């Protein structure tokens, strides 16, 4: 399904980053993707299931979460963090600021074998240059 990707702050991301950037709490609150209920239906995925999000800039596996800030059909939200950065648009248009919001993306239900990367795996993936 074609969607627009928004990344941003969330209360849980804010609180859990204070627990620790390497903590499980942080992982659980950041390696997620908030979707509009109707979109989840259309994709036929239920909360807790994994999804794959693809953009021009990369792809990432995330846990699907039913958005508490719906309706926003066709818009998905990922909290700031290492997972979001695998798919955001680095283009700054000479402003110093990458494009963290409104990125063209595609969402699919994850296959069994796609699992959510740990932070270490994310860093390896990046340094591996994939």
């Amino acid at each position, binding site marked *: 399904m074609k969607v627009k990707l928004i990344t*941003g702050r969330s209360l849980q991301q*804010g609180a859990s980053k204070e627990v620790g*950037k390497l*903590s499980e709490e942080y992982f659980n609150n950041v390696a997620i993707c908030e979707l509009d209920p109707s979109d989840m239906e259309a994709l036929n995925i239920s909360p807790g299931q994994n999804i794959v999000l693809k953009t021009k800039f990369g792809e990432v596996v995330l846990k699907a979460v039913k958005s508490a800030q719906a309706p926003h059909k066709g818009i998905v939200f990922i909290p700031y963090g290492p997972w979001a*950065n695998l798919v955001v648009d680095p283009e*700054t248009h000479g402003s110093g*600021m990458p494009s963290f919001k409104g990125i063209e993306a595609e969402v699919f239900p994850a296959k069994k074998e796609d699992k959510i990367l740990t932070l270490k795996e994310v*860093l390896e993936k990046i340094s591996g240059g994939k």
Partner: protein
Amino acid sequence: MEKIINNVVCTVCGCCCDDLEVKVKDGKIVEVKNACAVSLSKFQNYNGKERIVKPLIKENGEFKECDLKEAIEKASKILAEAKYPLIYGLSLTSTEAIGKAVELAEALGGVIDNTTSVCHGPSLIGVHDVGLVTCTLGEVKNRADLIIYWGSNPIFSHPRHLTRYTVFSRGKFRRERGERKLVVVDVRKTATAKLADIFIQVTPNQDYELISALRMAVKGEEIYLNEVAGVPTSKIEELADLMISCEFGILFFGLGLTMSLGKSRNIDAALSLVRDLNERTKFLIMPMRGHYNVTGANEVIAWQTGYPFAVDFSQGYPRYNPGETTTIELLTRGECDAALIVGSDPIAHFPVSAVKHLMKIPVITIDPHRSATTLISTVVIPTVITGIEAEGTVYRMDGVPLECKKLVEPPLGLKSDEEIINEILVNVKKLKE
């Protein structure tokens, strides 16, 4: 032995709430009153399992603990030998430490940038072209009858903003919620939007078009299109009338404007809209600054160099050009050969293209806690936590400066950011001679 410390300044977000009540027992914080969820989490966890207490140096891929002297010397050597080092972060520390960092950047002939680059940098670029018609938050509390949040979700990002400063606050001329109107413009019906009298859902990346139409409506020009950015023209005109007819209005804008298509020009347009409204009524605008001292970093860097962020000292004097001297571009173009990161986690928050280069060059990180960035660093220097274990000056999002307090003693042997940066500076000056 137990004591209550009152009027504590919170060092989490740009609200810098200064009414926290902290109970300290046997040198430990046991209770915090008036704090929001994020603040509470900070007080509960600041000294938890992620805390670093010993300096670390990476040798063939493995971290080994070392003493502060060794870490400082290693860091100084890396930085002094670099042809184009970068100092980045500086929004989670005191202005005193930031001032020292500017001096270090000058001594190194490097670039100093703070996290403004990736939050409200575009806002400052907009200000360079248009100006900024603003006020302190107390003006809003005392006078505002129209409050607009655009691309900002304070309930999550600045949890006490509405209660302390805006819709739910109690001021001299506005006593209760009923005397104020709340408008929220966002791409999603956010937690803040749910509290709004009027919610306007804008199509992602079309804020500029919407502001453009709003400016037309405010000027009384006819808008030919039936709909702009997914918003019916009638609704745009309704909002324009509301803005013109209010007694004192304010527009708070967040990263929804600075990060989406148009960046600094979205802000340019918003600043112009508010400026023009002053021909009709009193209207002001304010960026929702994120970290508790990101504003302070801009202030210090500006008074010492003339420019608010992204300052290049490579030729012995301050030069500035966002897009050229900003961190993301420097890293993406692969132009820095060493980096000092102070209280920030770029590895977790930068796009892959920038992270890749940071992973290629020696990185020194000064941080109280482990993070994605400490993981890839060559040298990690632990530090005390400003606002809890050390005092220091911070600037609220509206530029009101506050002194935060030292509440408890830091873990043994840890020094403050200011002290650490100063020791590196002293070393670097020796090495440069």
